[in-house]
C-alpha cells in the first residue's frame, strides 16, 4: 500500500467513525429525549459535511498542487450518499412509521422534502457510476459532466436544510456560505482567461 492509498483508507475509516458512534449511542439509548429526530438531524448533517468536503478536493488540488487529494473524493462522495440514504431510511421508518403512502403524501406536500428528495435522487447515478469500471464504461468526459451534478446536489441539500429550520438559520447559512465559496472558486477559475487557454 503506497502512501496515498493509506491516506485514502484513513478517510474511509474516519468517515465511518460518526456512524459507529451514532449506532453505539442509539444502541445504548443515549440519543437524548428524541432519538429519531436526533439521528435524523445527525445523518443529514453528516451527509452535508461529506458532500462539502468532496467539493473541497478540487480546490485543494489547485492550491496545493498535490494530486493525491483526488483519491479521497470518491470516498467522501459515497459517504455523502450513504448518510443521505440512512437519513431517508430513518425518516421513513421512524417519522413515517414505515408507511410508504404517508411518506409519499408528505413528500408531495412539503417543498423542503421534495428538494431533499431530489438531492438524494440525483446522488444515485453518481453513486452508481462511482466505480472504476463504470468510469471506464461511461467514458471520462461524460463521467466528468455527469458528476458536475454534485454542485446541484449540494445546492439542493443546503436549501433542504435551510427550509426546515424553524427560525435560527445561522447554521444552514454557514453551509450556504461555504458552498458559495466552493462554487465561486470554480467559476472564477473557469472564467479567468489565463488559466483556461483552451476555452475560446
Amino acid at each position, binding site marked *: 500500500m503506497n502512501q496515498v492509498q493509506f491516506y485514502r483508507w484513513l478517510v474511509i475509516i474516519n468517515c465511518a467513525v460518526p456512524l459507529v458512534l451514532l449506532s453505539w*449511542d442509539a444502541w445504548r439509548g443515549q440519543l*437524548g429525549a*428524541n432519538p429519531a*429526530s436526533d439521528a435524523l438531524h445527525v445523518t443529514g448533517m453528516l451527509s452535508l459535511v461529506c458532500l462539502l468536503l468532496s467539493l473541497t478536493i478540487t480546490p485543494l488540488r489547485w492550491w496545493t498542487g498535490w494530486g493525491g487529494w483526488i483519491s479521497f473524493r470518491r470516498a467522501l462522495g459515497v459517504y455523502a450518499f450513504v448518510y443521505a440514504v440512512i437519513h431517508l431510511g430513518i425518516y421513513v421508518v421512524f417519522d413515517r*412509521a414505515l408507511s410508504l403512502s404517508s411518506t409519499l403524501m408528505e413528500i408531495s*406536500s412539503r417543498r423542503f422534502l421534495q428538494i431533499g428528495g431530489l438531492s438524494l435522487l440525483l446522488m444515485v447515478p453518481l453513486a452508481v457510476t462511482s466505480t472504476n469500471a463504470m468510469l471506464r464504461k461511461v467514458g471520462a468526459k461524460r463521467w466528468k459532466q455527469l458528476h458536475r451534478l454534485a454542485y446541484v446536489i449540494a445546492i439542493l441539500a443546503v436549501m433542504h436544510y435551510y427550509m426546515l429550520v424553524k427560525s435560527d438559520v445561522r447554521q444552514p447559512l454557514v453551509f450556504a456560505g461555504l458552498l458559495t465559496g466552493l462554487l465561486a472558486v470554480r467559476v472564477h477559475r473557469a472564467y479567468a482567461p489565463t488559466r483556461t487557454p483552451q476555452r475560446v
Partner: protein
Amino acid sequence: MQDIPKIDESEITPPQMYFNRRRLMRAGGTVVSVAATASLYRALNPTKLVSLDSKPLLPANVPNVTGQSAGATNPDANGTSTTTGDTSTTQSAGSSTDAAASSTPPTPDELRAKGFLVDDSMTPARYIVNYNNFYEFTTSKEGVASAAAGFKTDGWQFKVSGLVNKPQSFTIDQLHALSPLQERVYRMRCVEGWSMVIPWIGIQLSHLLDAVEPQAGARYVAFETLLDPERMPGQLNPILKWPYVEGLRIDEAMHPLTILATGLYRQLLPPQDGAPVRLVVPWKYGFKGIKSIVGITLTAQEPPTSWNLFAPNEYGFYANVNPDVDHPRWSQATEQRIGEVGRRKTLLFNGYDQQVGELYAGMDLRKNY
C-alpha cells in the same frame, strides 16, 4: 541529480526497519485520526444529561393529584431516578393550607373530567429537563439545560397591570399565597411535532386575575418574558424580536386548565423549563407557554405574539393544537411522544376538546390557526 547530498551508507535505514517503522507510523496515524474524529463527533453530539435537581416545591402543601387513587402512582416513582429522594414522602395530610385540606379532595375521575389529570404515562423528568425550546438561552433543544444552568431567579417579581382595578407586582411567594398549589398532569404538544406528559405544579391563572380584578374592557391578556441579554445570552441574537411576548383571549386565560406553573415533578421549575414562573395552556402548542414571566398586561386589543410576528403565515395567535391544520412546512397529524418509539396521532385541542371546544364554537379553526 548532482544536487542531492550524499548520505553515508550507515545512515540509511535498513528496509526491514523502514517498513516496520512505516507500519507503526500508519497504525499510530490511524488511531490518532480516529480518536480526533471521534472526539469531534462527541463534542458536537454530547450524551450527557442533567438531572432535575431543583428544590422540592412545598411538598407538604401540594396535594398529590396522582397519588389520590391508590397512593401508588407518585409521579416521581413512575418517572425517573434523577429526582432527589425526599419527594416520595409527601401527602397533603397535616398541611397548613387548610383551604385545600378542609374540602374533600377531588377524585381522580373528577380530575380526569376536568382535564387536570391524563392517564398517559408521564415523561421521565430527565427528558423534560434536557429537551427544551427556550431561545433566550440557545436554539439547541439539547443545549438549553446547560446554557440556562446558572440562571438566578432570586427576588423575582412580575407585574400585573393594564385594564385591572388592582395593578400590582407579585413575588413567587405572593403568587403561591393566592391559592393552594395544584398538581396538573398535562399533555404538552410542541408545534415541531413532539409531545410530553408533564406533572406541573402551579396555580390557575384565573386566581391571579381574580386578585387584580380585570375591568370590563379587558378582553385579552398579554405576557412578557424577562429581557436581559446578560442573563439570557440567546437574546443577543435577533432570532426573534426580544423580549418574547405571548397572549391569550381573556376567556382562554380564565379557563381552569390555564395555569401559571412554578414547578414540575413536585420540584421548583428549573431554569430550562421557564423558572421561576411560566404559562401552561395545554390545548395550545407549546410556544404559547411563555417562560420566565415578568409582565402580565390586560388589554382591549389582541396583543402581539412573538412567533406570529416572526412568521404570521406559520404561527397564528390561537395556536390551538389541531391535527387537521398543518404547519405550512410540516404535518401536524402525528406527534413523537418523547420516550416512545413510533408516532401517535395528534388529538384536536391536544385531547382537551371536551373542556375547551366550546371556547371556539363557530370559529373557523383553519383561518384562526
